[in-house]
């Protein structure tokens, strides 16, 4: 006869070394919380979650990588990242009056400057990499063509 404790232990091992969703959430929320505290304490104009991201990255580098369940749970959360913007996005309708008065310059500015920013960023990055490679630097891996990546 196995005791309840033995059964519980067996189940924990079956679930992958005892690392669980709860522990993954604890790690993520802990980093965010530390980021929020650091933001409030220092007054830097960088949001807590972005500081939390940096902290989590430092932790991952020190541990030489995320544990398996954190890897898969983070991927699961990020897969639904677009969903998380819907509540804030619906607020656009509530603030429509702010935009209506000067909709033409606002539209031109948002569309024009977004396209400029996208092109400037991508071309700058490409130009710098080409300039670096002229010095016979090794070929940069991960440079796969984008159009083959659609899933």
């Amino acid at each position, binding site marked *: 006869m196995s005791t309840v404790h033995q059964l519980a232990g067996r189940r924990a091992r079956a679930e992958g070394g005892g690392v669980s969703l709860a522990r993954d959430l604890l790690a*993520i929320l802990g980093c*965010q919380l530390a*980021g929020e505290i650091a933001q409030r304490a220092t007054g830097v*104009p*960088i949001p*807590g*979650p*972005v500081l*939390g*991201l940096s902290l*989590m990255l430092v932790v991952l580098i020190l541990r030489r*990588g995320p544990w398996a369940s954190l*890897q898969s749970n*983070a991927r699961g*959360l*990020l*897969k639904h*990242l*677009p*969903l*998380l*913007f*819907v*509540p*804030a*996005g*619906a*607020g*656009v*309708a*509530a*603030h429509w009056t*702010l935009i209506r008065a000067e909709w*033409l*310059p*606002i539209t031109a*500015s*948002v569309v*024009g*400057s*977004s396209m*400029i*920013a*996208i*092109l*400037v*960023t*991508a*071309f*700058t990055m*490409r130009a*710098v*990499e080409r300039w670096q490679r002229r010095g016979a630097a090794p070929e*940069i891996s*991960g*440079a796969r*063509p*984008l159009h083959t*990546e659609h*899933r």
Partner: protein
Amino acid sequence: MIALTAIGDAFFRLPLAGLFLTIAAYESASAIGRRIGSPTWANPVLLAIALVIGILSLTGTSYQAYFETAKLIHMLLGPAVVALAIPLYNNLLIIKRSATAVIFGVTLGGMSAAVSAVVIAWAMGASAPVMLSLAPKSVTTAIAIGISEQIGGMPELTAVLVVITGILGAIVTIPLLRLAGVDCLRASGLAAGVASHAIGTARLLAVDETAGAFAGLGMGLCGVVTATFMPTIVMLLRA
């Protein structure tokens, strides 16, 4: 119409009503997108937002009533940003090798986003507060609102512009760069992150993890660069 308003009123008194509506709208939007062959303009965020707004106006529900019960989803944005550390870590070697190019790309890209937004708005005859509200629109909401306040813009207007810019960037980045002949995952990702923060990052992450990692990097660094330089530049221009 009156019946719909009554149903809406009763529905949004339920806890988690907005949560249900949001996920239902997002799943419907994804299904509609797949049905019509996932064209780029049929972005699931855009479609889902349109569905939610449509239902709210049909039932005469206020945005506040909806948001109260949909907050749970909104609150996951913070943990999701922290979770971006994982794709960043997975791509750390590639990022290290591109470090110089990334720094130049983010700095020039971020500055061109802010400067061109203000210049275009000025040329089209926008008022000064609107121009200043447009300046930080490419960075993530929390940073953008702070900057807008600091330089004399309207924070509520900036918050709306940030979301619109994000959706636009998510839709146009890949087709625009393909037209321009840039076929590199890393450059596309970085550009999406710089121009359209986390909404652009979400789009690129769906295409490829490396592209998503560079987008997350672009978003974070662009936020830091913009928050550091913009208040100083505006102060210098005023003097």
